[in-house]
């Protein structure tokens, strides 16, 4: 591992530690906004953990679904591929707020409708990455693999998947980063997370609460983006 990535990792870790520490956040916010600036109803660490588990959980579900659909799209005929891609695009064009509004009557308040909305929202990047990654595998390599006697499964796991992996991880990265940002609206449904201080701040005209949630969400998104970029470059070098 290079010095640069060590430094980057240390920075990301330090930033995450800072935004989840009650003392650091309390002092920083107090310095800007005066006393009583920290959101009092939950600790910063708790909010961050809720946010992270919600966003990552939904991304994981989205990744699995998007990956599976992407493989189907890449293997199926052109019509089926178009259909799958259109379905993925549709899932992303429906605003998460609308999904929440539709899902709450069925699933109730809490994290479940939010999870659903985020998962749907995160499918497309992974689906797209998987399908384009598999489509971009050099046909000559596949032809050579068939011609030398590689079976279907071996060809997929040894040739096609490794060559598609960079595009798949890139899709995963967009999905996670989008979800970390979008998960903030989950607070409106009582799902907790960093949206809570933001919502509370907006309602109570407490800018410091909004800043607390926004800064923490930003740090989280940047750190995850950094980590997944690293993963991307590792699989690209292969």
């Amino acid at each position: 591992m290079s010095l640069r990535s060590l430094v980057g990792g240390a920075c990301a870790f330090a930033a995450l530690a800072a935004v989840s520490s009650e003392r650091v956040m309390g002092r920083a916010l107090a310095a800007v906004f005066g006393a009583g600036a920290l959101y009092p109803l939950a600790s910063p660490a708790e909010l961050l953990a809720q946010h992270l588990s919600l966003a990552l959980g939904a991304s994981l579900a989205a990744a699995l679904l998007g990956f599976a659909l992407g493989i189907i799209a890449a293997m199926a005929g052109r019509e089926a591929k178009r259909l799958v891609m259109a379905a993925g695009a549709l899932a992303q064009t429906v605003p998460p707020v609308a999904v929440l509004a539709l899902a709450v009557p069925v699933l109730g308040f809490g994290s479940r409708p939010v999870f659903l909305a985020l998962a749907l929202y995160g499918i497309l990047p992974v689906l797209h990455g998987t399908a384009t990654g598999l489509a971009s595998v050099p046909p000559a390599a596949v032809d050579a693999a068939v011609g030398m006697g590689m079976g279907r499964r071996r060809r997929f796991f040894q040739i096609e998947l490794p060559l598609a992996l960079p595009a798949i991880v890139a899709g995963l990265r967009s999905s996670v980063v989008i979800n970390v940002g979008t998960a903030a609206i989950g607070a409106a449904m009582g799902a907790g997370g960093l949206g809570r201080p933001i919502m509370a701040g907006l309602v109570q005209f407490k800018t410091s609460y909004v800043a607390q949630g926004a800064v923490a969400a930003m740090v989280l998104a940047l750190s995850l983006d950094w980590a997944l970029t690293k993963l991307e470059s590792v699989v690209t070098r292969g």
Partner: protein
Amino acid sequence: MEILRYEGAGKRYGAAWALRDFTLGIEEGTITALIGPSGSGKTTALRMANRMAEPDEGGLRYEGRELRSYRPEALRRRMGYVIQSVGLFPHWTVLQNVCAVPRLLGRRRREAEARADELLALVGLDPARYRGRRPSELSGGEAQRVGVARALAADPPLLLMDEPFGAVDPLQRAKLQASFLEIQKRLRKTVLLVTHDLDEAVRLADRVVLMRAGLVVQADTPARLLAEPAGEFARDFVGEERSLKRLARVAAASCARPPATVPLGADAPAADGSCDGPAVYWAVDGRGRPAGFVRPGARAKPGAEAPSVLPLGATLKEALALMLEDGPELVGLVDEEGVLRAELGLADIARASSQAVVTDGPR
């Protein structure tokens, strides 16, 4: 013995026949070239051999058995496969690429890698330098060589090659063809080769199958195809300069003469007035390597430019090309140590090409 036999094989794509009633026997240890314009069915015929295309009519036999009775994967692991675009796996090193088929066959890594090193050396790539490289770090010619090494890795009796040297420049192609013939001399594989390059087919193959629109036009030795093309299409395909192409089949050594040499520092014999003596002598150094030319009666000293020489295995076509480029009166043939063994001039080539019978002699 016939290793592979097509028995009236045909393939249809939609309503159009890509290949019709194709019958051909492939003798063990020979090189057969399928040649023709695009759409002639040559690649379809090739891909039938390893079941990448299944015949819609007729069938094939491999080592006497019905081809359909082999499992495609098992069959393909026993046939080397080389394609124009090479198709090296870009995420694998050269070594991993060459080891691919032995590993599929369940050979041990150690064993496969040792074999891969041998093959890299065989195709002219230093294993120590190349084994760890990625395909993206190879030139076109190097990649083609790795492709050939990969196809040979499991020591298959039959090699299928689809335009194997098509993606490189003419100079590289000539080099690849030469080293392929060298390898073939040692390994004596059965090779089925697809090409659209007549020169390549003439140079490499023992038998050329000229195809057009899914049908065989003529299947013959290269010399006979060039000398007696059957019908208008074959004549057009073989082209006007077919006598020139024929020269590629003839070893330069077969019509060369022993050289007239004079050691450096000595005087060449003076012309005796008759026209029998050589018009020019080779000045050779102490080990017999050519250093220049001397006129009769003159003192032998090194020339300003090195004389034009070719290796002993060169063809008449190469000799002629060298004469046209460098304009020497004589071309020398040298052995591996650079010692002058034979000489030939334009007149020798003219005599050889005017002889009606061109042999399919030694390459």
